[in-house]
């Protein structure tokens, strides 16, 4: 079974700084998808960024980018120019291509301070 591990329960960063959240996963599949979701205090899950395993190029969405290392099974999220609104829980998630089931990590709580 696939597993997703987020080893940083909490992180803090100051406004305008850059922070990187770590995620590792375990799978025997060669093709799959990886996601980062944000859960603000409202608790609604918001899709931040996605990566297809067959793509070597790292995904980027505005201030959010990933470092996808397929051989190492690592998928970290970098947030540049952090903003107060980035304060939230961040979840890394894995999905097989054949079955649309998301497997989530336990999350990293990010606090952005002024």
């Amino acid at each position, binding site marked *: 079974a696939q597993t*997703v591990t987020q080893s940083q329960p909490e992180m803090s960063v100051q406004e305008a700084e850059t922070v990187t959240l770590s995620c590792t996963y375990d799978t025997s599949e060669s093709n799959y*998808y990886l*996601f980062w*979701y944000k859960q603000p205090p*409202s*608790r*609604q*899950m*918001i*899709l931040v960024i*996605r990566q297809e395993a067959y793509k070597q190029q790292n995904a980027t969405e505005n201030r959010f980018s990933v470092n996808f290392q397929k051989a190492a099974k690592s998928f970290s999220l970098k947030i540049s120019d952090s903003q107060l609104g980035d304060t939230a829980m961040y*979840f890394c998630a894995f*999905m097989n*291509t054949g079955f*649309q*089931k*998301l*497997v*989530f*990590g*336990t*999350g990293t709580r990010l606090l952005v301070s002024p």
Partner: protein
Amino acid sequence: SQTIHQWPATLVQPVGSPLSLECTVEGTSNPNLYWYRQAAGRGLQLLFYSVGIGQISSEVPQNLSASRPQDRQFILSSKKLLLSDSGFYLCAWSAGTVSYEQYFGPGTRLTVT
């Protein structure tokens, strides 16, 4: 554009009482639908998913059940709630084979007392 609704937003129920949570999606047809549960301080766990009307697959055996009476309606039910059923329940949809991205509703906070 597509929107997903869940109600109620919060619910407090005694042990042994029934449960019905509803999820509806607008702006799309034949979506894949999902029910997830988030226990306090933890990630999400898939409970049920559906690829069409009347088609339900269960991921975790428990005293919960799901039904899909209409294309864009997904219901989570229980005949008798347990204390361990407390949590945050999230419904999600995806466009099936068109897109693998899942989009979540606002969630229902359930407290079983």
